């Protein structure tokens, strides 16, 4: 019995830090509200309520959360293996534009179109991720910087394709930069009243799959050990390059899938900046940092971050609090998550020194 309690508390321990980060983040948001002349208690309460406590707001949160979950999984996989890839955004864009181009080309029953489109988007995301990995390895450049640059390339490349090759000629708004609407082969809503679509279910399946891969397979073992101590992995005979390419391939495929789900589930076409401006991938990376690359933690963190964004727009409408408040809260949480990163790193350094003392 005692042992069970111990096990339980040990398994809850990873949740402690994200909770502290959330509380401090909300607190900071409250201070800003107070400074700008709003009632912080009402504001924070409204924020949380607006994000979670009605069927409609919960559905909006899960809709927004879907791409964030994919981005968080993609980042957690890469970062947890010690590869600091910021490439989720670019890979999502590539996945999204691929989906928007491929889906209209297929003449088949809807579900076939969906499957083929999603697979194509995954392949495109994976390939794009491998390209950045190759550039990083070949020219001995920081993966972090390379992937960031690749994000810009993806964004403008997709803009170009939308503007000059696949522009929707029937758009009512002649200034809209968007591709043709996908009529056959979309991800339907789970309940017709709410926006949450089957992409969310696919995201949950991905969470389960990635959890299994990371924790229960030889490959996952290799990625975890590489992330925790690359020298130890090398000593044990784990091939660093191969592990890196496989991890980044998988990470890119998940991001690509996330982009495609957003196209097939909410927009039904590629709209310029549809991935960049909502900041899906940044929320995703924050979620993975918050949870310390814990896969289940990623799921909850991603939904939470999506929730405060939705709540942010609710309080903007109802209380006239600027929705940028959400960005501040997320910023503080990111800062705390990154700080933990630094603390852990410092501890490792001190641990080494302590071992010698």
């Amino acid at each position, binding site marked *: 019995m005692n042992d069970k309690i111990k096990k339980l508390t040990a398994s809850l321990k990873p949740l402690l830090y994200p909770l502290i980060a959330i509380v401090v983040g909300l607190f900071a948001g409250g201070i800003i509200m107070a400074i700008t002349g709003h009632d912080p208690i009402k504001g924070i309460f409204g924020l949380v309520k607006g994000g979670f406590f009605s069927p409609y707001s919960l559905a909006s949160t899960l809709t927004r959360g879907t791409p964030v979950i994919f981005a968080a999984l993609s980042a957690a996989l890469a970062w947890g293996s010690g590869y600091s890839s910021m490439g989720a955004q670019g890979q999502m864009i590539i996945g999204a534009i691929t989906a928007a181009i491929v889906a209209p080309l297929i003449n088949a029953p809807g579900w076939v179109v969906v499957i083929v489109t999603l697979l194509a988007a995954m392949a495109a995301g994976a390939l794009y991720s491998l390209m950045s990995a190759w550039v990083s390895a070949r020219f001995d450049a920081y993966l972090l910087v390379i992937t960031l640059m690749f994000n810009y390339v993806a964004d403008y490349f997709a803009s170009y394709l939308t503007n000059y090759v696949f522009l929707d000629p029937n758009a009512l708004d002649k200034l809209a930069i968007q591709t043709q609407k996908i009529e056959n082969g979309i991800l339907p809503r789970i309940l017709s009243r709410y926006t949450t679509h089957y992409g969310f279910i696919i995201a949950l399946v991905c969470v389960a799959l990635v959890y299994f891969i990371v924790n*229960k*397979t030889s490959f996952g*073992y290799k990625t*975890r050990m590489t992330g*925790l101590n690359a020298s130890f992995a090398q*000593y*044990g005979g784990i091939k660093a390059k191969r592990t890196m390419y496989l991890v980044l391939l998988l990470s890119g495929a998940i991001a690509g899938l996330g982009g495609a789900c957003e196209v097939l589930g909410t927009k039904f076409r590629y709209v310029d900046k549809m991935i960049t401006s909502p900041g899906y991938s940044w929320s995703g990376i924050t979620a993975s940092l918050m949870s310390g690359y814990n896969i289940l933690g990623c799921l909850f963190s991603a939904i939470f971050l999506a929730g405060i964004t939705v709540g942010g727009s609710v309080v903007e409408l109802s209380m006239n609090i600027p929705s940028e408040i959400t960005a501040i809260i997320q910023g503080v949480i990111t800062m705390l998550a990154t700080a933990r990163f630094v603390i852990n790193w410092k501890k*490792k350094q001190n641990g080494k020194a302590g071992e010698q003392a």
Partner: protein
Amino acid sequence: MILQMKDIVKTYGNVVANDHVSIDLNEGEILAIVGENGAGKSTIMKILYGLEKADSGEITVWGEKVNFRSPIDAMKHHIGMVQQHFMLFGSMTVTENIVYNNEIAKNGFFDRKANREKVRQLSEKYGLMVDPDAIIDDCPVGTQQRVEILKTLYQDASLIIFDEPSAVLTPNEVDDLLRTLRELAKAGKSIILITHKLNEVMAVADRITVMRAGKVIKTLNRADTNTDELSYLMIGRHTADLQLRPHNPGETLLQVKDLTMGSAAGKKVLNGVNLEVRAGEIVGIAGVSGNGQTELVRCITGLEREYEGSVTVCGHDVSNKGVDTIRQAGLSHIPEDRYVWGSAREASLSDNFLMGEENSEKYSRHGVLKSKQIIEHADKLIAEYSVKVDNSRQKMKELSGGNAQKIITAREIEREVPLTIACEPTRGIDIGAMEFVHERLVNKRDHNGGILLVSSELSEILKLSDRIYVMYNGQLNHEFKHGEVDERKLGKLMLGGKADE
């Protein structure tokens, strides 16, 4: 009596580190405190030096009841400590390090000449020869230790604590150190020596306090005791005398031919190394660290692939091959640094046990890990090596250094492969566990395994090795059979001396 510590109690959580420990010291005396790792000897000294605070108990120094809050208090009461790992500024001179915090100044500026003169006088007075202008990083470890001692003397310490001072020294440097300790005592300094090396204790101590599991077991006069009695008191049982049974070595398991490796500076780190390990023998490599042992092991195990010459493991030519291929050929490897190479501190024990076997049929199937077998294997090794943990889900970082070493040693010795490269397999583990590891190594040898043992602990090399090579300056110069050589002679050869000197 200049120091009296009475009924000191110190607990960490629910671990009692010091259980009513009493220690006293006379002027000009050398008191040795001996005990295994975790016996509480470092704790009691940390309390005396003001690094830790006792829960209860009394400390009297020179007749005055004291309660130190920091080492600064201890220094004010003329107590100094030479730590196991030196607290020196590597890029500064010997003089600057010794006078630090108490410099002689002239018009507010550091008076180089006066400070140097002061250091020179001090070093002559106690026969601790140092070059006052040398940069610390350029000094050998023995010299750095002398600087540490001079530092305490400069701070006017009359009671000096030495924490495992010989752990980092070569045999010849140890001789110098022991001589220094005697000189200091003769000059009226009182000394407390913490160690677990009994031959050193027998060479210099006046009295010996034995600690075990946080308690003082007994305090004896050196003249009335011997190493057997001391080790019995330390461990609480008699140690088995390990004897290498005569054994005929079989086929060659490891063959290294003309191994040569350069460094970035163009110097040859390995220079034509030839060696072989056969089934059923332990081959020891003795040497001062930094003479190429690390690089030799890196080449053999595949961590280093840029070298000339050939390496053959169990009949497979693995020259310039990677770690994976070489491990497959039949080799396991206890690395010299348990945290840099040997483990992942943030990973669970069972994950740490799995390393190198994650693809084997025993622990995985179609790429899916067999969790049950992995946990069973981990639990079995934890029990066999009596590692002090609750369960195999615990993280490596929660273990003490000695227990962490046991995990790594167990993983590699118990792997079902013919050849084991063992680097410092007993570093930092207590005598009982050390004996056990030695038994397992010898057991592997008796079952026709081959072991290459690289250790800075000469007694370990001498005790276990069927054959011994001496490594100096990137070369294996001398080869001896078991019993043909003693510690003194090896020590000389390790420093580049000739065999017939």
